[in-house]
């Protein structure tokens, strides 16, 4: 079972809660915020494997006639072909690795696909006694899209185990990719006008993708912003964590929240497992 943690807004406590939950219920932790993977700081994993995530980009061969059909058909303007001077130019920052150019090329074997690494997938364990898996995607600096990395991580998840998927902020393609894989979505909310605004946007997405959902209210200061949201949208509250300077200080030192707020985390975990129907031993 895959449980995704999303928030819309950044800094509301996704990683804090995802690593805290993984630690509390011995779930595999999967860091899918490949732009800024930070879960490792809170779980202290032992990485045993690091593989490149590769995508395929086109390269022409000596069979190329420089007809330019590939460049004309490319929807991402990633190719320019010049017949006169026999140039085949790929702008790989624009390439989406869709393979269209190879498909539409009228000459056999005139374009071949070569691999390019866009980042790494690191895996290992974070709890030596219990062999709990840790996986993280790390996007290479300068690469624009983490989606191929996330897809590769998803294809290796073990469905029979409990996996906590830590998402990137926002509500664009990488977040869609994470929610797609989820059996249950946890909203990590911050009860401020910013937090509510962004939570509503990502919640729209969760609804459109038809996933069961629950809410954790983080940095709770006693106002009703998110309680009202929960009532309005009929989203169950799994628990609350108070706004507290000492939590921020512990976060800064990468201390796992489950070590300090163990009561809250246990309470949230119980509610979460009840809602998802997952039996945890």
């Amino acid at each position, binding site marked *: 079972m895959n449980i995704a943690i999303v928030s819309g807004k950044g800094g509301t406590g996704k990683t804090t809660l995802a690593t805290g939950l993984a630690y509390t219920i011995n779930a595999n932790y999967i860091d899918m915020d490949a732009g800024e993977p930070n879960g490792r700081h809170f779980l202290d994993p032992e990485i045993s494997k690091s593989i490149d995530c590769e995508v395929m980009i086109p390269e022409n061969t000596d069979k190329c006639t420089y007809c*330019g059909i590939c*460049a004309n058909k490319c929807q*991402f*303007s*990633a*190719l*320019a*072909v*010049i017949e*006169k*001077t026999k*140039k085949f*130019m790929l*702008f790989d920052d*624009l390439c989406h690795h869709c393979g269209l150019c190879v498909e539409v090329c009228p000459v056999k074997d005139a374009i071949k696909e070569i691999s390019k690494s866009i980042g790494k997938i690191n895996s290992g364990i974070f709890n030596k006694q219990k062999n709990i898996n840790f996986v993280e995607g790390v996007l290479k600096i300068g690469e624009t899209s983490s989606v191929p990395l996330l897809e590769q991580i998803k294809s290796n998840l073990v469905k029979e185990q409990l996996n906590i998927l830590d998402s990137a902020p926002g509500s664009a393609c990488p977040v869609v990719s994470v929610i797609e894989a989820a059996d249950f979505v946890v909203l990590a909310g911050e009860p401020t006008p910013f937090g509510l605004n962004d939570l509503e946007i990502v919640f729209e997405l969760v609804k459109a993708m038809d996933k069961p959902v629950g809410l954790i209210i983080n940095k709770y200061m006693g106002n009703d912003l998110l309680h009202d949201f929960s009532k309005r949208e009929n989203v169950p509250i799994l628990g609350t964590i108070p706004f507290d300077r000492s939590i921020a200080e512990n976060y800064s030192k990468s201390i796992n929240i489950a070590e300090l707020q163990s009561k809250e985390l246990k309470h949230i975990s119980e509610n979460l497992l009840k809602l998802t129907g997952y039996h945890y031993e």
Partner: protein
Amino acid sequence: MKTFISVKESSLDSMLDERFGRAAYFIVVDTDSGEIVKSINNEYINDAHGVGIKAASIAVNENVDSVIGHNFGPKVLEVLKAAGIKMYTSEVKTIKDIIDDYKNNKLSATL
């Protein structure tokens, strides 16, 4: 000689469009006669990425000798250079004035 210019309207009285990839139109001008030989509607104007590559590719396909714009992005430079097309930059003026500047070698060549 044929030159390719990014313009706001398809006429010799039009001003140069300072955004090469996002110009409303491109015209091909015969520099000897000073006449427009072809006018092309820029269908990529609203694409957010790769408009420069598309515009440069149009110039390449028109088989022009040179391109005139206000400034060129790195991808435009790369494509036009690979095609052996000369690039000139000009202040924003009417196309008529720019053609005169071209004839009098007053435009600055890029690279």
